[in-house]
Every structure is written in C-alpha cells, then in structure tokens.
C-alpha cells in the first residue's frame, strides 16, 4: 500500500467558503486576458528588444536622439503605447495573483494590492503622457543631443 493518497481518487468535499471570494466571471476574463495579451506581448517585446538591443549598435546607441527618432513616427508611438498598457495590465494581474497566494492576512493583502494599483496608475498615466506630450526638439538644448531632423 502506498502511503500517499491516489492522485486520481476523488477529493473529499470541501467546506464551502464562508464568503464569496469573487463575483461574476472577472477571474475567468483575467485568465483569458493573460493568455491573449501574452501572445501579443511576445511580438511587441521581442520587436522592442531587437530594435533597441540587437540591431545597429545595440544598447550603446540608445540616447535622447534615438528615442526622439523613434517617437517621431506614429508607428512606434502606437507600438510603445500598446506595449505599456498590455504589459502593465498583464504584470499587475500577475503580481496580484502572487499577492493573493502568499499574503494571508487581510490587511497585508489590502496594503500590498493598494500599493500595486497605485504603481499601476502612476506608471500607466505617466508613460502615456510621455509618449504623447514628448517634444523631440526642445528649445535651448544643444543640437548635438537632438535628432538630426531638429536642425533641418
């Protein structure tokens, strides 16, 4: 006889939780979102890493002029905006799951998730504003730090 319960044996019925932990299908939609956004993020992030770290001079070439050159094109603005939103929602939901798994005290969980959602709002709002209010040719900056199209 094995000491261990047969993994295929039916589980004993569990006591019903005293309160509902979720309402509706939110967790199901979250589960689907993780998979759908994950596939899109693979394309967006692999493209981002290739253009910024592999192509050309790699990380050595990244400076203000490089970023300004990219964001001069709506293509990279939309790419980075999509990447920012999807990655932040995907990552926040992942960390939320981790907090739910390991923080057993109600207050600990509440505080950690409060901080998490605060970080989410700050980073998403800041990142979105930066992508759309960015000035590639700020006046008064030395021309050698700016992309070449500023002086044309």
């Amino acid at each position, binding site marked *: 006889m094995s000491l261990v319960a047969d993994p295929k044996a039916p589980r004993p019925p569990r006591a019903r939780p005293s309160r509902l932990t979720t309402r509706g299908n939110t967790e199901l939609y979250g589960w689907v979102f993780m998979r759908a956004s994950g*596939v899109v*993020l693979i394309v967006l992030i692999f493209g981002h890493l290739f253009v910024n*770290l592999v192509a050309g001079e790699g*990380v050595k070439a990244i*400076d203000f*002029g490089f970023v300004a050159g990219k964001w001069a094109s709506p293509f990279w603005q939309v790419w980075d905006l999509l990447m920012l939103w999807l990655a932040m929602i995907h990552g926040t939901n992942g960390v939320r799951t981790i907090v739910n798994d390991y923080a057993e005290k109600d207050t600990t969980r509440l505080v950690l998730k409060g901080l998490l959602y605060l970080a989410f709002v700050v980073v998403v709002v*800041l990142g979105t504003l930066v992508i759309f209010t960015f000035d590639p040719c700020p006046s008064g900056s030395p021309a050698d730090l700016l992309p070449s199209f500023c002086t044309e």
Partner: protein
Amino acid sequence: MAAPAASPARKPVGTLYRGREGMWSWVAHRVTGFAIFFFLLVHVLDTSLVRISPEAYNDVIGTYKNPIMGLGEAGLVAAIVFHAFNGLRIILVDFWAKGPRYQRVMLWVVVGLFAVTMAGFLPRHLMHVFGGE
C-alpha cells in the same frame, strides 16, 4: 503489523506536478514574471526622463551602458525569453487537447528554444557592451 508510517524517509510522490518539471517551470514563471514587472516600473520611469531634458535622459541611460548593467540586461532578456516561451507552453497545456500529456516534453522544447535564442542574443549584446568601439 508494523505501521508503514514509521518510515520517515518516504516523501510525497505520485502527484502530477509536485517536485517535478511542472512545479519548477511554474516557480520559474512566477519568479521571472515578478522580476520583469519591477524592471518595467523602473524602465517607464527612466524613459520618462526624455520629458525633462535630453541631458537628464542621457545621464541616466548612460548607466545602462556600463558592463555590470550590461550583464543585468542579459539576465533581464533571459527572464523575458523564458517567460515568453513558457507562456506559450502554458497556453498549449490549457487549449491543446494533448497539451497536458506533453507538458513535460514541451518544457524541454522551451529550454531548447531558450538556449537557441540566447545563443543568438548574448554574443551580439556582450559585443555591444564590452566591445571597444
């Protein structure tokens, strides 16, 4: 009858995941995801410096170009590549009818794809970081 429970050396075995590839890939997925998330927070903040001034951005991004940060970037890319390929494996386990049966084989496919991708990335990246040009 001697009680079998008296043998303390027996460890729980026989579950599908515990202590095996399934569990360790799950642990690695958590750890890499957690690390990537915190890098993402920092990365949005450092990129936001473009809104302050070209000098402020160039100063901070300059620290990404030193060799220690270069190794950190290699680690970050490794975490992203594993998380990406293992994420596809999770999707196949969930949606492909034969996914659960092949989950262990698929982990070794993930490890293989990871090795190939890193073999392509690392030499080029380390050349950029440590190359003298």
